């Protein structure tokens, strides 16, 4: 069975009330959802909390997921809205900046400087631009899939990805030759 077919079967079973099917969905999609939220928030602990909240909300709303919809895009969309809600709440934005520094893993290997630079550059991107970059450049989402997940127009996603990539490459000391 193809991954999409397996997702469809699991969603159907979960919609019928199967918690084991939903557990398989969690297992299959926790990585992209958590990775997206880590890159969107910068705060790994907050990202994992939001990922858990995302799956809880997904369980409550699984009936709303239409057949053929992308499960990961749907989940990332829920996660993104939870992230927006979290940073709107008092104190979260301030804490995020501090946690960004506190939560990142210790630098290791030859790539650590580049990673630090990348994380710093990501934190300076506007929220929606960062989310587009996290989905399209880091997680192999198509522009259309990212637009569906984030609820943004396709053209906006494309321009966010182009501008975000240019800023990240500029920070890394490279040139943006991929436009």
């Amino acid at each position, binding site marked *: 069975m193809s991954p999409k077919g397996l997702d469809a079967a699991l969603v159907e079973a979960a919609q019928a009330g199967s918690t084991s099917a939903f557990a398989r969905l969690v297992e299959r999609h926790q*990585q992209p959802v958590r990775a997206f939220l880590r890159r969107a928030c910068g705060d790994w602990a907050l990202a994992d909390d939001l990922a858990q909240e995302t799956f809880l909300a997904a369980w409550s709303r699984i009936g709303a997921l239409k057949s053929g919809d992308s499960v990961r895009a749907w989940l990332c969309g829920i996660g993104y809205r939870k992230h927006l809600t979290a940073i709107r709440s008092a104190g979260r934005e301030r804490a995020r900046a501090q946690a960004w520094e506190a939560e990142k893993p210790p630098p290791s290997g030859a790539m650590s400087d580049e990673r630090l630079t990348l994380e710093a550059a990501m934190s300076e991107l506007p929220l929606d631009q960062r989310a587009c970059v996290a989905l399209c450049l880091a997680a192999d989402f198509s522009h259309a899939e990212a637009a569906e997940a984030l609820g943004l127009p396709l053209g906006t996603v494309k321009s966010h990805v182009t501008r975000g990539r240019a800023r990240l490459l500029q920070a890394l000391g490279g040139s943006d030759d991929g436009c």
Partner: protein
Amino acid sequence: MTDAEDRLRALFAEDAPPARDPAFSTAVMERIARRRFLGEVALLSSFTLAGGSVLWAVGPSLAPTLAELSLGVTPLVGCLMLALTALAMLDRRIVKALGLES
């Protein structure tokens, strides 16, 4: 795919969570189970409360009828309970000894 995108993707991939994380999945499913349990408790509590309220409201008017009915039904219920107890106690060995086994 360009070299620049490959480079960025490689950097992003370094801090990706593991593909399988049983601790995370278990934590999510535990929270879901807890939420379902609390939902079921709330539902059952509301049914119990509603049922109790109805009984409290209609109890005084039904009490004489129920008391009268119970007097007539008590002997029948007693006989039935005795019969069921006897059946439960008569295991296969006794049935065999009495030659009642078919």
